[in-house]
């Protein structure tokens, strides 16, 4: 019996959701999984709402389409809650991880999800500003994902992040991103 986990990412263009979707997939692959990670491209302009997808499976993945019934939804920008139905199709007993400074109770109310849904909140933007120096909540939120779902071990995330970012960024920037992952792992709140 194949074990498939589907993640849908909601973000605004420029927040690094596609990179995060790929980082999770790449980490899972190194744990022996089959993976898929893809963006849903719309008109390409900064700030536009976008979706990205990650599939992690114990067997080869054959489907090539968007994810309509995710087990995990990740929201990188809370203002999307006003315009996008982020929990559409969320599986029963699923998980929502929200980048926000709002309280858990407030998040649960805003999301309007059933009691069996796990809601987690992390202020990934604040963590990103304090560690990386820019509001790029994508890497910290992967730390939160690791803590909340256990889908990928945080040490493995940091290892793959170092390799992925090593091609493009300075050691200082890589260290800042690693610190953001650790902080979000520790600071994420869930209920």
């Amino acid at each position, binding site marked *: 019996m194949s074990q498939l986990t589907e993640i849908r990412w909601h973000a605004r263009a420029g927040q690094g959701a596609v990179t995060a979707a790929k980082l999770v*997939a*790449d980490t899972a692959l190194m744990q022996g999984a089959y993976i*898929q*990670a*893809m963006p849903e491209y719309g008109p390409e302009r900064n700030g536009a709402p976008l979706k990205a997808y990650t599939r992690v499976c114990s067997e080869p993945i054959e*489907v090539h*389409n968007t994810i*309509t019934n995710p087990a995990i939804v990740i929201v990188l920008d809370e203002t999307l809650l006003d315009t996008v139905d982020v929990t559409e199709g969320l599986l029963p007993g699923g998980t929502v991880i929200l980048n926000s400074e709002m309280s858990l109770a407030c998040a649960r109310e805003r999301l309007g999800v059933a009691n069996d849904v796990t809601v987690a909140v992390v202020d990934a933007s604040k963590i990103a500003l304090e560690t990386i120096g820019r509001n790029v909540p994508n890497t910290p939120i992967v730390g939160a994902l690791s803590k909340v779902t256990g889908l990928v071990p945080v040490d493995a995330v940091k290892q793959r992040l170092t390799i992925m970012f090593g091609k493009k960024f300075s050691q200082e920037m890589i260290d800042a991103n690693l610190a953001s992952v650790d902080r979000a792992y520790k600071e994420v709140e869930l209920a």
Partner: protein
Amino acid sequence: MSTEIKAFSATGNQMVAEAMRQAEPDVMAAYPITPQTTIVESFAKFVADGRVHTEYVTVESEHSALSACVGASAAGARVATATASQGLALMWEELHITAGMRLPIVMANANRALAAPINIHCDHSDIMGARDTGWIIMFAETAQEAYDNTVVSFKVAEDARVQLPVLTTLDGFTTSHAMERCEMEDDDTVRAFVGDYVAAHPLLDTDNPVGCGSYALGDCYMKTHLACRRANTGALSVIEEYGKAWEAICGRPFNVVDTWGTEDADYVVVVLGSAAGNARHIARELCAQGRRVGVVRPKVFRPFPAAAVAAACKTAKAVAVMDRSDSIGAAHGPLGAEVISALHEAGLTMPVKNYIFGLGGQDLTNELMTSIFDTLEDVAAGTASPALSYLGFEE
């Protein structure tokens, strides 16, 4: 265990760029603008980093890109490039010239929509514009297959029995930009497989001067076309030969026509490219429920493997053909027409339902895919029309 270590994550574009790097073309000419692909971007970096010794020519349009490739190939070089969407459309004139001059250029295409309306997402509108040009056309389902097909393409194009250009295609975004689990062989293995290219009649061989692309009246023009047709049709066995040779090296199956569940299927779906995975995914579920359904995926569209496609459909009570582009004004889409022709030639008379789906990146959901298999039962029973329909828009 060794395969666990070999696996890595990559997009289809990255995999094609790697295959082209390993084949070491002498020349690549490209025009890097949207809608291009990151294939030529990655390749430019390989050149800049000294990882491949290719003359990389930046030109002023896609029309010029293929023109430059034509010149280089006629001169005797191994040539590769990549394009997509409007870029391929702008190359249309040169597509015919390349095949007519029998130049073994390998070109990747990320299959994407054509304007208007403006849309650069996945469908087969661009590539189907090349179907009558003489090029060999291959469709990859996955990033992995995009790599394998591209490696094989060089062998096929440059083989003396073929001497034709090859379009090695992958579905835009769906495969080109999606990251998947992949493997690749090492550089030495690919180089040994692909070998060196020695052109039979290079333009730059001044001791044996030749003319290329010259004027020809009807008699000679028809003979040239006939030779091109024979070479293209005959390429099927060459593709099979090199595909199987590559399969023996890499261990990944290479079938000119990929089939699943067709041995005793009541209902069969025929589809190109990445959507075959969606079809197989649903077919597995339906078979687990006791239904007999199958999926046929021609990996090669030109030459069209008609006999193998018909053979894979022979037990079916009804066949669905899924086209990711339309031939507006015709009774069927490009693949639909091929399959119906193939079935007719094989004396098979089951009803065929042709669907146009996924235009401009429209999502092929599992529900839509399931509805095709469901409708086929009604088509076979005579309670649903086999007339062409736009999936999800006309039911």
